[in-house]
């Protein structure tokens, strides 16, 4: 079988002195939506940030399209075709909505054009001139996702996109993720809410104490509920 789009092996990461990831291994194939599930502090966000090159120190292997990126700086990782939508959304207050949307440079052909993005997120067009942080939480999340759709990045990493949002907005984000999957994007999703994860993902990894402890496909999910409940402590 061909090499997966993203292959992470033995990934270790540190924030300053604290050793946060202990040999994480995951694979994401072209066109898949894969989630990282786990409790708070299990290392899900750190895994995304370590793949993106945003931790103090990292070791192991991060291969993207066969290219080793473990020694690369974050701007080169972005240019290789990986994009991150961070947990805190990272909308810039000194930029208006359009400037926020156009900020990430296009790294490859094949991203969505502005028209397609506005069709997907009509609110962003209406609020084009508002300062980015004057949007509602849901709109900010839409903006944070929208701006990485433009860049042509193949792998989109979304860190808890549903956190703190109203159910109707969560549904809209679910539709958005299915839509971008249909357009051929690959998604690595961090979620706490596994009922939501179930509606969008093909496979799930479960993390605990900075390691991957289990992997389930979405079909097996119903049969593995007891096990997952134990991990996630719901």
């Amino acid at each position: 079988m061909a090499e997966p789009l993203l292959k992470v092996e033995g990934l270790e990461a540190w924030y300053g002195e604290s050793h946060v990831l202990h040999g994480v291994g995951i694979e994401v194939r072209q066109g898949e939506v894969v989630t990282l599930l786990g409790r708070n502090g299990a290392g899900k966000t750190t895994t995304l940030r370590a793949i993106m090159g945003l931790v103090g120190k990292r070791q192991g292997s991060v291969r993207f399209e066969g290219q080793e990126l473990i020694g690369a700086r974050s701007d080169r990782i972005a240019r290789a075709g990986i994009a991150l939508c961070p947990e805190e959304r990272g909308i810039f207050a000194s930029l208006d909505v359009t400037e926020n949307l156009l900020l990430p440079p296009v790294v490859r052909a094949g991203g969505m054009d502005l028209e397609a993005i506005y069709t997907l997120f009509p609110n962003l067009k209406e609020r084009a001139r508002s300062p980015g942080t004057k949007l509602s939480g849901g709109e900010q999340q839409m903006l944070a996702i929208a701006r990485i759709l433009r860049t042509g990045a193949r792998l989109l990493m979304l860190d808890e996109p549903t956190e703190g949002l109203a159910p109707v907005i969560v549904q809209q984000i679910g539709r958005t993720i299915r839509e971008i999957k249909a357009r051929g994007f690959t998604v690595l999703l961090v979620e706490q809410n596994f009922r939501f994860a179930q509606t969008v993902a093909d496979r799930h990894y479960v993390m605990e104490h900075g390691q991957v402890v289990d992997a389930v496909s979405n079909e097996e999910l119903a049969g593995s509920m007891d096990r997952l409940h134990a991990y996630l402590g719901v």
Partner: protein
Amino acid sequence: MLEDLLFQLELGLPQVVLGLVNGAFYALLSLGLAVIFGMLNVINFAHGAQFMMGAFVAWMMLNWLGIGYWPALVLAPLVVGAFGVVLEKTMISRLYKLDHLYGLLLTFGIALIIEGLFRNQFGSSGMPYSPPEILSGPPVDLGFMFLPKYRLWVVVAALVMSLVTWLVIEKTRLGAYLRAATENAALVQAFGVNVPRMVTLTYAAGVALAAFAGVLAAPIYSVNPQMGSSLIIVVFAVVVIGGMGSILGSVVTGFGLGLVEGLTKVFYPEASSTVIFVIMAIVLLARPAGLFGRA
């Protein structure tokens, strides 16, 4: 009473206009400091020395190479800006992870070394630099006073350069990167922007602005190694009043305080050299973030 005041003001208008000329230098220098501080979080104490270098490079170009004022107005900022690139790459960039104080100490030390080297080479007495032919003719009649053409040009040039800088930062894509990186540099880099290179070029641009002001100043003040250090103290007060890192704030406050200084010379000359510091103290008490600063 009011008529008295108006009469005094009319007599003093020339002072006020000259205040505007000083204000032009305050604006340009604090603009460069604001650009650098916004991006690097470094208070560039070498700014006065770099201003002086701009004037000296223009002087050297004229006297050693026969390059006149107009080419020097472009070339000297480029030369001094290139010097800024070397400083940032080799020294300043190593300090970003440390406390602000280290950047301040380093750039202060650099300023002392640069000024020492120039004093050693050129002595402390000033050297003349004539304004270009086209700006040296008879003064312009403003109705209430005669203003040397060159001083009028300084005000216009400073206004245009401030406007260009503001447009680049507020209206262009590059400016959007700069503003975004000021808020969250790590994320901008994770979008694929080469932030370290952008930081280097921002420092160089701020330094080049200082050198541009230096070339503008060469025909007005004599070209001497101390010309920057005497001006920069006032400029730091301007930056504090305007608000650290605010582009609009530094331009408005620069010109405004030049005017205030001029007005003080009319109404109470004894206070003209301290008025800016008095305003600084009041602003710091009432609005510690500065008039245009975000708290």
